[in-house]
């Protein structure tokens, strides 16, 4: 087993441990930290896969923006909330059963061997002329991203602006009744 697959197993175990910790941790801050750990492990997996851009996005957008926002909100809130002391609702047993069942069904579907002869692989995957994953390095990906998908990139800014306006509208609309 080489170093790369060892690191892959390590990061996979880290992501899984973060997910399990999210279920058992009591305080939302611990849940947030477990989620951050899980996301950082996933970023490590993406980096090992050679998809460097996604790894950078994962750290910058998810851990850097979304989770920092979440941590700030948790710090704003009351620590004496009843949902902090009683962490599980009424659906504990059916939820666990359903989740386990879903995992088993999806796992069976994913691991059931597919006849390789019947799989149509895209041409780019079969012809490995260049190093696999080289198009996901920062420089070639950025060039192709902004040359071919510039409209999508610009549209995301419109979406983000709409989200900002909507967030402000939610806050203002909630304040209006009590003056």
């Amino acid at each position, binding site marked *: 087993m080489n170093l790369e697959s060892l690191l892959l197993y390590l990061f996979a175990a880290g992501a899984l441990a973060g997910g399990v910790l999210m*279920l058992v941790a009591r305080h939302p801050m611990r849940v947030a930290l477990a989620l951050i750990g899980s996301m950082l492990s996933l970023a490590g997996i*993406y980096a090992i896969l050679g998809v460097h851009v996604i790894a950078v996005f994962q750290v910058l957008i998810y851990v850097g923006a979304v989770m920092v*926002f979440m941590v700030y909100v948790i710090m704003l809130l009351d620590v004496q909330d009843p949902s902090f002391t009683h962490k599980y609702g009424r659906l504990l047993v059916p939820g666990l059963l359903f989740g386990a069942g879903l995992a088993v069904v999806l796992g069976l579907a*994913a691991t059931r061997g597919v006849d390789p002869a019947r799989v149509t692989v895209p041409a780019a995957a079969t012809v490995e002329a260049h190093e696999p994953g080289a198009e996901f390095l920062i420089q070639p990906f950025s060039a192709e991203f902004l040359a071919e998908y510039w409209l999508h990139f610009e549209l995301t800014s419109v979406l983000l602006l709409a989200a900002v306006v909507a967030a402000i509208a939610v806050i203002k609309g909630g304040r209006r009744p009590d003056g």
Partner: protein
Amino acid sequence: MDRVQLLLALSIALFALGLVGVMVRRNALVMLMCMELMLNGVILSLVTFAQRAADTAGAVLVFLIFVVAAAEIAIAIPIVLLLSRQRKTLDVEAYSDLRG
């Protein structure tokens, strides 16, 4: 175990863990975070397949999903804050009279 299979299994496990979290936890913010975990699991499978097909469009799609997820959180958290300000609690059991 094949690398793609390992990553697919991890993605399924993360999705199932997130789903269980959404169903069993009582705290609204924790439920939001579990939804993020589900999204991360799905993104992992998308990245795995995009990397295997050596397709840039997959990575671009992941970027767009990240942006949509950030926008979703930016709207969801103010809603949760307003709910908690109105009912003085984050416990979803207190919101059980919210019916469509």
